């Protein structure tokens, strides 16, 4: 006669046994999948490696230059076209110019020739009047007050 306790144990054993088998089976499947994925990753790495070499080959500076001449026509720029922000004439701020006009003027005069300074000043001052100002009036307006 099988006692209930023994029966319970046997049932549990069967359940756990089946569970263990099931999990192990799943793990096996997953491991196979993992191996496959690793293989794929290695293949991809290999491909990336080859493509990198290809990329480097296609980007030979000489080759790029050839393509540029053919399709873009860019030319090297000369040293004259490079400068610093500092070396550029300062932008004139109309709002603050009331107080600092004198200062700005002396600063800017050091950087630009007087004539270009005047025209620039004229162009920068008073954006309200700019719309209806004719080129002639711009030339007369020699800066200072907006």
């Amino acid at each position, binding site marked *: 006669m099988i006692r209930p306790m023994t029966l319970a144990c046997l049932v549990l054993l069967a359940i756990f046994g089946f569970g263990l088998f099931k999990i192990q089976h799943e*793990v096996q499947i997953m*491991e196979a999948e*993992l*191996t496959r994925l*690793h293989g794929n*990753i*290695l293949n991809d*790495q*290999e491909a990336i*490696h*080859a493509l*990198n*070499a*290809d*990329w*480097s*080959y296609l*980007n*030979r*500076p*000489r080759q790029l230059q050839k393509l540029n001449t053919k399709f873009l026509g860019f030319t*090297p*720029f*000369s*040293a*004259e076209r*490079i*400068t*610093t922000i500092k070396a550029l004439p300062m932008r004139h701020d109309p709002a603050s110019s009331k107080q600092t006009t004198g200062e700005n003027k002396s600063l800017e005069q050091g950087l630009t020739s007087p004539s270009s300074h005047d025209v620039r000043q004229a162009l920068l001052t008073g954006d309200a009047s700019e719309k209806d100002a004719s080129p002639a009036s711009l030339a007369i307006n020699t800066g200072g007050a907006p």
Partner: protein
Amino acid sequence: MIRQNPPSYTKGCQALDGITKQALDTARNRLLMIGALFLVTFTVIGARLIGLTMMHDGHEPRLVQATELGTLKRERADILDRNGILLATSLRTHWLYAHPQQILDIDEAVDKLKSVLPNLEEKLARSRLASDRSFVWIYRHLTPRQKYTVNSLGILGLDFQNEEKRIYPHRNLTAHVLGFSGNDHHGLAGVEHFMNKELRSSSEPIRLSLDIRVQSILHEELSRAHQHHQAIGSAGLMMDARNGEVLALVSLPDFDPNNPRNRDGEAFFNRATLGVYEMGSTFKIFTAAMALESGTVGLDGGYDATEPIGMGHDAISDYHPQGRWLSVPEILIHSSNIGAAKMASDVGTTGQRAFLGKLGLLSPASIELPEVGKPLVPSPWSELNTMTVAYGHGLAISPVQLATGAAAMVNGGILYPATLFPRVPKETGKDERPPETGEPGSRVLSPEISEQVRRLMRVVVAKGTGKRAKVNGYLVGGKTGTAEKLVDGDYSAKALLSSFVSAFPMTAPRYVLFVMLDEPKGTEKTNGYATGGWVAAPVARRVISRTGPLLGILPIDEGAPEVQRKMFVDVAPRGPSRVSY
């Protein structure tokens, strides 16, 4: 167990006699002890179980570790340029082999293979397949696509073996720096040979100080001059004046390292590091620096260059004779051999030897290449040698040595041995370090004299033989060199070695560029001249004007009073009264 103890135990104890009772007591005690032992044991096991599952690593052992992703193992590591551009790598290719016995129809097989492998040598393949060996190679280095098409032909008896092939995507461009490696994955020349151990042991890529953009520009411009002047060879290199890093190194003629054939040929000779040459007048910078440093003459002094110096049956004369007293700047501007010889003669043989030794011109360069030339040093070093070495004859050195020395002349006086590997981390490499800081080099010149040498080199380009190297905004300074080559034991005016060593920008030199052409021929464009000023200086001009913006050098306004003051040299001769004999 407890159940087995009859519940009537206490009731029936009266019926039991003493002996039975005693035995039962003993049994009960033992039972209790065993029970306690089991209790303790199970408690310990239980506690341990809880501890292991909950407190410790409760999870399963990590399977990821067990089947870790393998990395691609390569025979050789990659080589990169300073910006990480791939210069050399190993790619997997497939070698095709066959088991001849299994091939059913040889003609059909060869025809089919030929249709997908156009370079297949039919005759050879046919004879190999017809042989009675069990294994024959058919084709080397198939691409993955070729392998696929061969497979799809469905020929029985063919198989593949994986092999690695070294690929140099930039081909000839990097030939003399990288060298090449053989089919057995051993480096046979260049960095590939020098760094063979490192490249094979680690998969970490090696980064060079080379800048492929600069290399390409130098290669292109040098090739143009090389062809235009039909030189037998050319060399060029650009170097960071502040730490000795080589940004570009070119030697022509060159070869395709992907397919190095005829390995003893002229193309495999690295003129930039292995070749040693009598450099000629470029040496006058060293002579001037040496004389100024030793104090035998000042920047305002000079020498009489009226008469050639007679030495036995030889005479030291000038290429552009001025026939008068020349100031030190004039000696460089007109490249006067007489002046330079007298300058060196005043310093003396010992002083000259020590100075050139400090500059590393008397021992092989330390650059990381197996192809390093040993300088040809005069022995014994006579008074005549002292005079000829002053203008670059009698002592043969390699271009890389000359550039290294020139860098020390202009960078504030510190010698940094040339290197092909970055000396400073990239992040800090771009800052505006003053020339005196940075890598530990050795001081060979005082900063003041270096400053004077900079002025002298600038004036040579501004007013002298180096005019054709002028580039607006980059304040080039330099010195031309035109050496007559020894042909059958005699110096020949026909076979010249024309060179130009330059640095820019001269206010605070960042880069040193050396260009050299071996036996260039004069052309109509150069009025028949093949001197350094005519053939090498224009190459320097084009290279500097193209690389300057690339290297992020801020153009300098040459007209600015501050720059003019910095570069000022009093050229005007003051006459023989000031001769410092």
